C-alpha cells in the first residue's frame, strides 16, 4: 500500500503544476487550461513516480517514453518537465511566443524531454505502438505511456492503433484515457456515439481498468496492474475538466480561455503554490 506521505507529496507537486498551467496561460494570453488540469494528476504520477527518465540525458535510449497525444494539454506537460529539471521555469514566460522553447503544441525537436510531437488529435497511440514495437525489437525493457483524451478517441486512427497493439501483444504499452466528458464543442455524450468507452477497448482485446483519475493511489495501482498484463492495457481515468479550480471545473469555456489577474490570484490562493518560482 502506498505511503500516505508519498500521496501527499504527489498532491503538492500536482498543485504546483496546476498553478504553473494557470500562470503560463495567463501570461501567454493563450492556451488550454481546462484539458491540462484534467490530466495533471496522471502527468504528475508519471513524471514524479513512474517514468524511468533522466532529465540530464533527455534522449537516453533506455528511458520510458511518454506521449501526450492530447497535445493541447501541453502546459501541464511543460510544467512537469520544468519541475523535473529539463529546462528552466523561466521558459514558461515564452509559451506560444516567437522563437520560444514551448511551442503552442508539443514539439520534440524544440523542447527537451518531449518524446514526441503532438497536437493533431488521434495520432499518439500509433506512435506509441511504434515505440513499443521498437522496444521489443531491440529487447529493451522500457515502457511507453500515452495519454489520450476522451474526445480524441473519436479519431479512427486510434482504433487502427488499438488493433495493431493487440496483434503485437504490446504489454509494454500503457494508455490512459483522460475521460473528462468534454471536448471542444460540448459534452462527449452529445457529440458522438462513443460512450461507454470501456467496452470498446474490451472489444479490441485490451486489458481495461476504470479509475478515478484524480486519486493518486488508484492511478499508481492501475499502472502496477497494467504492467503485469500480457498485452496492451488501457486505464479509463474518470476526470474533471479544470480539476482543482472550482471556477474552472466542468465549465467548458475553459477548454481554451485566458485567466484574468483576479482568477490567477484565486488559483494562487486555492493551490497554495508559488506562482513565481
Amino acid at each position: 500500500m502506498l505511503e500516505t506521505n508519498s500521496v501527499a507529496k504527489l498532491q503538492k507537486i500536482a498543485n504546483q503544476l496546476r498553478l504553473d498551467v494557470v500562470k503560463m496561460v495567463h501570461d501567454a494570453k493563450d492556451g488550454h487550461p481546462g484539458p491540462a488540469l484534467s490530466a495533471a494528476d496522471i502527468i504528475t504520477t508519471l513524471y514524479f513516480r513512474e517514468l524511468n527518465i533522466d532529465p540530464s540525458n533527455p534522449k537516453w535510449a533506455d528511458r520510458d517514453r511518454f506521449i501526450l497525444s492530447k497535445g493541447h494539454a501541453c502546459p501541464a506537460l511543460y510544467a512537469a518537465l520544468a519541475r523535473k529539471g529539463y529546462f528552466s521555469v523561466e521558459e514558461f514566460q515564452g509559451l506560444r511566443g516567437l522563437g520560444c522553447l514551448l511551442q503552442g503544441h508539443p514539439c520534440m525537436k524544440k523542447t527537451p524531454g518531449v518524446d514526441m510531437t503532438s497536437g493533431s488529435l488521434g495520432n499518439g497511440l500509433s506512435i506509441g505502438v511504434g515505440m513499443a514495437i521498437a522496444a521489443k525489437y531491440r529487447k529493451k525493457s522500457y515502457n511507453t505511456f500515452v495519454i489520450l483524451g476522451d474526445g480524441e478517441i473519436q479519431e479512427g486512427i486510434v482504433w487502427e492503433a488499438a488493433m495493431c497493439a493487440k496483434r503485437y501483444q504490446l504489454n509494454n504499452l500503457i494508455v490512459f484515457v483522460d475521460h473528462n466528458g468534454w471536448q471542444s464543442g460540448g459534452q462527449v455524450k452529445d457529440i458522438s456515439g462513443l460512450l461507454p468507452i470501456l467496452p470498446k477497448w474490451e472489444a479490441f482485446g485490451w486489458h481495461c481498468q476504470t479509475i478515478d483519475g484524480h486519486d493518486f493511489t488508484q492511478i499508481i495501482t492501475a499502472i502496477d496492474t497494467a504492467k503485469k498484463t500480457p498485452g496492451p492495457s488501457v486505464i479509463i481515468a474518470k476526470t474533471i475538466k479544470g480539476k482543482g479550480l472550482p471556477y474552472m471545473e466542468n465549465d467548458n469555456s475553459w477548454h481554451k480561455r485566458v485567466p484574468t489577474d483576479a482568477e490567477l490570484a484565486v488559483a494562487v490562493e486555492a493551490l497554495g503554490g508559488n506562482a513565481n518560482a
Partner: protein
Amino acid sequence: MLSYKGTREAFTKALIDLSAEDDRFLLVSPDSLKAMRATPFADLYPDRYIEVGIAEQNAVAVAAGLASCGLVPFVATYGGFITMRACEQLRTFVAYPHLNVKFIGINSGIFGGEREGVTHQFFEDLGIVRSIPGITVVAPADEHQVYHAVKAIANIDGPVYLRAGNGREHVVYDQDAPFDLGKIRVLKEYGTDVALFANGFIMNRALEAAEILNAQGIKVTLADVHTLKPIDVEGITKILAKCGAAVTVEDHNIIGGLADAVAKVSTDHCPAPIGRIGLQDVFPGSGPAEAVLDCYGMAVQDIVTAVKTVLSKKR
C-alpha cells in the same frame, strides 16, 4: 547478384541487401507485403517486418514511433495511400520532427495504376510531398535506378518519398549505372535546340521522342531529373542556358510535379519557354498501361509536338 525484375522487386532486393549489413532497417506494411513483392524480405527477417493491417495512417505514425527510437522504417505501399490518406501523419509526425522514415509509393502515375482506374492511379503524390518542408522526393526511371536509389536514400538522414511502379516499367538504364541523389543525369545530348527534362517510368517515351526528333533534325538534350527535391538547380540551369527552351515529361499531373519544379528553376535563374507533358489536370480512367498514357497526353507524339511548339517560341 541482381535478381529482380520490376521496380517493386528491385526495392525488396535493395532492402534485403541493406539489411544484411544493418539491423536498423524495417519494413512497415499496411497489408502491402504481397503488393510490394516483399515476401522474401519478411521470410528472411520476420522480426523486421512490421504488419499493421490495412491502415496507412497507422503505418506512417507507427513508423514515426519506430524512427524516434533510432530505427529506419520503410513504409511501402500504394503511393496515393501514403501521400493522401496518411498525408498528415507524414507531414506532422515524420517531416516536422525530421524523422528517418522512408516511403516507397507504388502504382505511381497513371501508367502504374493503369487498369485499376483512378482510385489506384496516383498523379498527385509528387506535388503533395514536394510542398512539405524537409522531405526528399525521388522518382527513378526504372528498376535498376530504383535499386540504387533505395540504397542511396537509406544512407541519408531524414524522410524520403520514392516512387515505384506496378511491374510494367521499361528498363532504360544499365544495371550498374549509378544513382546520384540530388543530381540530374544527362541521358542524350543530340544538341541544344530544346531541353527535355523527364523523370519516372515514362523515360522510355522521352528517349524515343528524342530519337525521332533527332531524325527530323531537331536536336535535344535529355536529362533525367530523378530527384525532384532538392532539385538540381545548377544542373538544370546549365542545360536551360544552353538550350533556351524546355519540355518537361512526367507521368503526373502537370501541377505540382516536375513541370512546376523545372519552371521554378527557370523563372528564378534562366527564364525560358517551357512545355509541359503530363496529365493535363483531369481525372483519367482505366485502360492498358501504354494506352492510358497515349490517351491522356503522354504519347511519344505529344512529346515531339511539344518540343516543336516550344522551339517555335524560342527567341
